[in-house]
């Protein structure tokens, strides 16, 4: 039987002949621009890739066909020919009324899914009137302290038809409960609700650092949502395992990939330990990656992600259902790559990053707005970001064929390097007792800090170019773009509604439900039913998190 290999590798002698006869004379006349070339992750890039670089890659085993194991070329056999990715712009600022209006505006402009950004008090499980919330209410996202805010946020948005993604982590189970109760009030059956909860607490300890409780009870809360959704909200993705924030904190592309997938493995292990069936709950785990500047490195990352996940689910967890092995992911362009200087340049960066996400086969995409290094986006900036996706999707032809870059010597070689590097990280993390153990030892945190520092140094030495910052900078820059200003009245308006909610509710029902929640937390029962009951009684986010703080305690980050 002949080997199934598409392209025969050239003889080493042929490469040497090319080097001597064709390359050398040119190099003597005109040396290359740099002695070495590196990706944005500071990984070396060769001058040329040939079939010789694919020696260890087997087409059938490693690349194969889209819609088939190991899904390197995508999870759908038709790619985007059947359905384009979901254009899901992350939005949230000020009061629930303001964000509700932005949602409706974006949907009217052709956006196909919603994504909620909550403010820092909500992300940390504090109410708007908590002293620590001062100055932060409605600033980085929409302010939500209770069901009353959530009702306004989704007013007039049919939750049976629209898929909503919620970026919330430490208090995710509470916001999920609020969302479900709003849906219930709209008369929607839980079984028909689809959408995604970020709910990825591991990457908070690793990178984004919006935590509340110690790691192990926080993991228990995540598993509670898996269990609850598996039983009652089967079309909902209870987690979006996120590399995005890991990358933003300074990780390389490889570190983003490896830590995210190892986080995914950790959640699967905890789910299995709680008695969940791999082929029942894993198909609903979703992922979230960054789209950074280094075009090919990013595409390789997404393709490697699918290959590694499918293989790991089959070999490590004995998955049988193809859906368990098919990694679905959301992508967002790299906020960290945007510059304050010459901000309109960011439109170009975003377009290229978005293109990488699409060529990597993302299921949904957020394109950043050009003004996001300055503030939250204005309507105008948010619209251009959405139009960027629409232009690439509908004018360029990149969605006409599946995995158009598959087979590129460079890309396939990079994809393989990503796979190999990730498996090395898996071995290291496994030897530390898994990701929870590795985080407790500070391993991923230190790796990321080191990469962030090395990148900064490379920028300062001019080895990595940032247009408008360390090259092509302009002395006198006009800053004529208008940015969104969050008015300081948001805090007062939110506090007012919160006080009204606290006065009008049934205090006995609130107290009872919070006691039940504490009891569930103490005994190790699933906390979701009691959380939903507390939300229905209009217990506030801060009160519910306080009940859990009483039982679980608080996370203290060790110094490293």
């Amino acid at each position, binding site marked *: 039987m002949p080997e199934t290999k598409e392209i025969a590798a050239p003889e080493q002698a042929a490469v040497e002949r090319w080097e001597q006869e064709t390359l050398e004379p040119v190099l003597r006349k005109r040396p290359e621009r740099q002695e070495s070339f590196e990706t944005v992750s500071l990984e070396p890039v060769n001058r040329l890739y040939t079939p010789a670089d694919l020696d260890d890659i087997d087409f059938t085993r490693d690349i194969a066909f889209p819609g088939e194991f190991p899904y390197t070329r995508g999870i759908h056999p038709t790619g985007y020919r059947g359905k384009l990715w979901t254009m899901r712009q992350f939005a949230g600022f000020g009061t629930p009324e303001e964000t509700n209006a932005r949602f409706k505006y974006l949907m009217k402009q052709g956006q196909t899914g919603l994504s909620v950004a909550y403010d820092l008090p909500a992300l940390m499980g504090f109410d708007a009137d908590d002293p*620590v919330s001062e100055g932060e209410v409605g600033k980085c996202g929409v302010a939500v302290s209770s069901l009353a805010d959530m009702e306004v946020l989704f007013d007039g948005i049919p939750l049976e038809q629209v898929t909503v993604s919620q970026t919330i982590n430490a208090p995710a189970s509470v916001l999920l409960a609020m969302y479900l109760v709003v849906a219930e009030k709209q008369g929607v059956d839980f079984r028909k609700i689809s959408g995604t909860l970020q709910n990825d607490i591991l990457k908070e300890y690793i990178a984004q650092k919006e935590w509340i409780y110690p790691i192990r009870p926080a993991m228990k809360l995540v598993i509670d949502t898996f269990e609850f959704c598996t039983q009652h909200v089967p079309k909902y993705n209870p987690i979006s395992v996120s590399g995005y924030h890991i990358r933003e904190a300074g990780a390389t592309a490889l570190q983003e990939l490896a830590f995210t997938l190892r986080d995914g493995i950790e959640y699967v292990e905890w789910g299995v330990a709680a008695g969940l069936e791999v082929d029942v709950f894993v198909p609903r785990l979703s992922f979230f990656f960054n789209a950074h500047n280094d075009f090919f490195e990013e595409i390789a990352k997404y393709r490697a992600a699918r290959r590694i996940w499918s293989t790991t689910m089959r070999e490590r967890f004995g998955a049988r259902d193809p859906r368990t092995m098919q990694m679905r992911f959301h992508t967002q362009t790299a906020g960290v790559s945007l*510059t304050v*200087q010459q901000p309109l340049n960011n439109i170009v960066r975003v377009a290229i990053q978005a293109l990488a996400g699409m060529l990597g086969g993302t299921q949904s995409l957020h394109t950043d707005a050009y003004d996001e290094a300055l*503030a939250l986006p204005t309507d105008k900036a948010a619209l251009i970001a959405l139009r960027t996706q629409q232009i690439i999707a509908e004018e360029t032809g990149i969605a006409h064929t599946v995995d158009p870059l598959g087979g590129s010597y460079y890309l396939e070689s990079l994809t393989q390097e990503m796979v190999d590097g990730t498996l090395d990280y898996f071995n290291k993390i496994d030897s530390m007792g898994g990701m929870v153990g590795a985080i407790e030892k500070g391993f991923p945190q230190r790796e990321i800090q080191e990469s*962030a*520092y090395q990148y900064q140094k490379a*920028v*300062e030495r001019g080895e990595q170019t*940032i247009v408008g*910052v360390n090259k092509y900078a302009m002395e006198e820059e006009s800053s004529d773009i208008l940015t969104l200003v969050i008015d300081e009245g948001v805090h007062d308006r939110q506090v007012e509604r919160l006080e009204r909610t606290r006065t009008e509710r049934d205090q006995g029902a609130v107290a009872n439900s919070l006691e039940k929640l504490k009891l569930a937390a103490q005994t190790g029962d699933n906390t979701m039913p009691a959380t939903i009951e507390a939300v229905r009684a209009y217990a506030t986010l801060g009160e519910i998190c306080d009940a859990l703080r009483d039982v679980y305690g608080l996370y203290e980050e060790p110094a490293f």
Partner: protein
Amino acid sequence: MSERKIRVLVAKPGLDGHDRGAKVIARALRDAGMEVIYTGLRQTPEMIAAAALQEDVDAVGVSILSGAHNTLCPRIVQLLRERGMDDCLVLVGGIVPKEDVPRLKEQGVAAVFLPGTSTEDIVVYLRENVRPRT
């Protein structure tokens, strides 16, 4: 007599957990021979001022990306002055709109470093502006 090393407190006030910048700056200042104390996340202005006093620092570098700078930075300056730390420089880095810079300076912030600043510029600024002590 050896010159006293410049001592800097790198502080993260508010609820914002984005500490990439704070940690990069802390390391760059250390590499430049300064003594750096990092507060960790979510410090109140009171905790930051107390740490600055206790560590007897020459400067406090406040990193903030959440938009709460107008509330938090002037309070840090005020608390430092109340504790008699009149020469202690307060530097701010992070996402700060240009329009806010003059107001922060009026309220006693010595310098605001916007995104894209090189760590070397901050080192130079500290060397030039910290009042020498023996």
